[in-house]
């Protein structure tokens, strides 16, 4: 596989931002051809800025960017946006209100040459694109007469019609309502698979990131703090920050009690003394852990099990009391008080727990992630 995008030591500070830290500190990453690469991070961490630098809408203070074979940004080069081989979808659709749906999609094709392009020629490319988006019947409508979801699809069609080397998406789904967002998520993935276009996707929504990406880079304060495949990030975050960002999490603070030996799979047993009691964790990281260190244990709500009667297994069992149950359709989210702390526990709807029920909470050791502090 070849590298389609290479970003190296990107640094950018907005003018007029005073002595605020830079919007992008020092960001480097590579995206392989045909991959779906996601920049995930909380608001203001510099995702959009990074993406805009790739698009050429922002001129970074320093760093290098290569798209395919072409160096578009370096110390001495700056290729303006319209000469970069990109397609971009913006958060608020950015469809041109004075053009029809057809004209919107045809626009990038018209920009290819300086002479007038015949409509019949354009149709050959525009119509298949509209068809793929299920938009053929709206061809002659004004872009403003479309619903939010249709506008979003239109802007995706417009970005893809020129068959760009790179597709850039800045929170394209965030202006849609929840149901439509789920639907567009699926569609986006389907289209990207079908067209095999290298994609950089910016979002702060962990579900979008996890479900769509081949690779995720988590950003914090202008830097990438962890990069990896969705599963790695979800199950083996490097830090509390990443752990919290990619999904709901329980964090239990404590002190390292014992550290076992690393076995053949690279896993060691770590016992942590917490407010709950001793929590046994299977740690797959290579971080330095010593007895007496302060640490925290992360466990996902759906990984925790809850029983009415005491289970046979003895490890990581704690007694608690149900505080609250929130029925969310696919399951029930409980707040359970265990000793001095509260845990979020998500269980299937098959077993019912009521308020004030006494329960046995089981935290499987292989689902626990330890972070030294």
């Amino acid at each position, binding site marked *: 596989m070849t590298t389609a995008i290479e970003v190296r030591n990107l640094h950018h500070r907005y*003018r007029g931002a005073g002595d605020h830290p830079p919007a992008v500190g020092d960001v480097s990453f590579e995206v392989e051809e045909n991959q779906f690469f996601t920049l995930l991070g909380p608001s203001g961490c510099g995702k959009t800025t990074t993406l805009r630098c790739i698009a050429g809408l922002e001129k970074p203070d320093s760093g290098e960017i290569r798209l395919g074979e072409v160096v578009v940004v370096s110390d001495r080069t700056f290729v303006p946006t319209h000469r970069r081989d990109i397609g971009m979808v913006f958060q608020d659709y950015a469809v041109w209100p004075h053009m029809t749906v057809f004209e919107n999609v045809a626009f990038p094709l018209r920009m290819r040459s300086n002479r007038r392009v015949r409509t019949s020629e354009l149709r050959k490319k525009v119509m298949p694109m509209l068809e793929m988006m299920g938009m053929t019947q709206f061809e002659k409508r004004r872009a403003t007469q479309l619903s939010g979801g249709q506008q979003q699809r239109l802007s995706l069609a*417009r970005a893809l019609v020129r068959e760009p080397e790179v597709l850039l998406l800045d929170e394209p789904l965030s202006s849609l309502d929840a149901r439509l967002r789920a639907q567009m998520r699926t569609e986006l993935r389907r289209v990207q698979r*079908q067209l095999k276009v290298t994609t950089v996707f910016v979002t702060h929504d962990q579900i979008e990131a996890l479900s769509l990406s081949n690779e995720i880079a988590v950003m914090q304060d202008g830097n990438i703090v962890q990069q990896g495949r969705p599963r790695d990030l979800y199950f083996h975050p490097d830090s509390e920050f990443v752990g919290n960002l990619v999904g709901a999490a329980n964090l239990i603070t404590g002190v390292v009690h014992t550290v076992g030996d690393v076995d053949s799979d690279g896993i060691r047993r770590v016992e942590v003394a917490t407010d709950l009691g001793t929590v046994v964790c299977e740690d797959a990281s290579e971080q330095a852990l010593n007895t007496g260190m302060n640490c925290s244990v992360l466990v996902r709500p759906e990984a925790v099990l809850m029983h009415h009667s005491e289970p046979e297994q003895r490890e990581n069992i704690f007694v608690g009391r149900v505080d609250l149950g929130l029925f969310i359709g696919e399951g029930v989210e409980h707040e359970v008080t265990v000793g001095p702390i509260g845990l979020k526990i998500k269980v299937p709807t098959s077993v019912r727990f009521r308020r004030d029920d006494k329960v046995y909470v089981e935290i499987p050791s292989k689902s626990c992630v330890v972070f030294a502090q």
Partner: protein
Amino acid sequence: MTLLQDSPPSEPPAAPSRPRHLSLLDNIYARRLRGRTVMAILAIAVLLYLVGGPLFILATSTFQKNEFGLPLSAGSRWTTENIQTVFGSSETYHVLITTLLFALGSLIVAFIVALSFSWLIERTNIPCRNLLFVLVVAPSGMPLLITSISWSLLLNPTNGVINQFLHAVLGIKFSAYSLPGMILVQAFGMVPLTFLLITGSLRSMNGVLEDAADASGANRWRIVRKITLPLLTPALLGALIYEFVNSVENVDVPLVLGLPGHITVLSTTIFNNTHPATGLPDYGLSSTYGLLLLILALGPLIVYDRAIGSGGKYATITGRVRRPTRIDLGRWRIPMFIGAMSYIVVSFLLPLLILIFASVQPFYSGVNKAAFGKVTLNEWRNIWHTGSVGMAIKNTILLGVVVSVGTMLLSVMIAWVIVRARSRFIWILDLLAFMPHAIPGVVIGLSVLLLYLMLPLPIYGTIWIIVIAQSTLYVSLGTRLMGAAIAQTQVVLEEAAAASGAPMRRIWFRVIIPLIRPSFFNGALLVFMASMQNLTLPLMLSSPGNVVLSSLIWDRWNYGLPTQAAVLSVVMTAITVTIAALLRGGSGTRDTV
């Protein structure tokens, strides 16, 4: 990409894969001036030429004396004599005080009337609100010169219609040729624009803010004091400053009503010094008066700019806005309506009728039985054959078209750079574009006059010198209008075009221009109307060859030909009122300014 046919790789040069090695072409890209830089430089250059040049001449000519002619030419010397003359004479202080009284008096009257109308139309259930709105705005089509002429016909001490009536009934007279008379007429002239400036923000004010105060237990008076007025303050202050400059810069009222009553204000002093009835013009002295007037106008503006900050200038309204609730006038509904209509009859209808009447009289001499017997259409038939009328109409149209299109094109460019560019130096452009707003028209006229008397360009005495002066005068208005329009079009629409492969030039033609076209036309129409109505500049720069309708009307009136002046006035009012009605199609006028 597999679905669609392969496209040829787009333009970027094939760079070596190691970024450090750069091809020559890359370098060219890096060095090439970006489109917006070129535009910014161009805009600054044109503005410097239009605004900076004349002001520079004005300032230098203040410190020059030349008995035989122009400053900065053979025989002129550096001196502070002008300053001494101006500030040493008690006449100056008298003129200054008269100017201030005239300006403040007309401001107070105009604001009381405009505020009352805004409140009645936007906040109460007075009947026929749309009709009232149109009728308050319609007089904006009547040039101040013509308003002054008709009030002279209505209120002159010898045969003014109203005076005839007052004298017969009450035995008193009220002369238009007095300071109160001038104040009244100037105020009538300023009401429409003041009303438009205020009513827009009163209308777009978010009712939720007032409701919130209501829900917090504030009574109505406290809501007005604590919420409504503070929210309205920027608009009120802005309108106040704008109209203040208007009231000190115009020569219309001071010439038509002040001259017969020997009441001189700064603008007429400047005019008289450059166009003396006898002898040579004294450009040094009039420049000094010009500088004085400039300072007078600039002071409040700077204070205002500090107070409001430039950030709010292009602020747009976002979010959900709920219209405020209307106040029920109860049994005052009809009396209030009658009061409002009476004002409109007196301020607009009466002047219009007297003009029409004067235009069908052989020589206006009051309204009486004998006069009705003498009604004739002679002048309506004959006037077209007078040589200068044809030329004036041609010149007026040429002037209006060139100024409106040229100014708006320049304004779009400037406004786009100001709104979109992120350079640290944009404030220079902002300031340059904002300046003409503060420079009284009579000062612009004077400076442009001096500049082209000296520059070896064949412009002096032609219509083009007025074109240049008016473009300078209206570029602030244009920039303001287009700035608001551009700020309302989202920048992502332009970015999306760039990301689709469109270079700057094509983004302009395919995205920016189509999106702002309605505002552009509206602005051009507004400038066209202002250009037609403007008397100050054509008069300051007048030559036999560049007469336009407004200066022709003044000429005929001044020459003692009221019938001809009236015919031309009726024609011109008909045209400008039509244009005023065209602004955003009648009721849509509400969105302008």
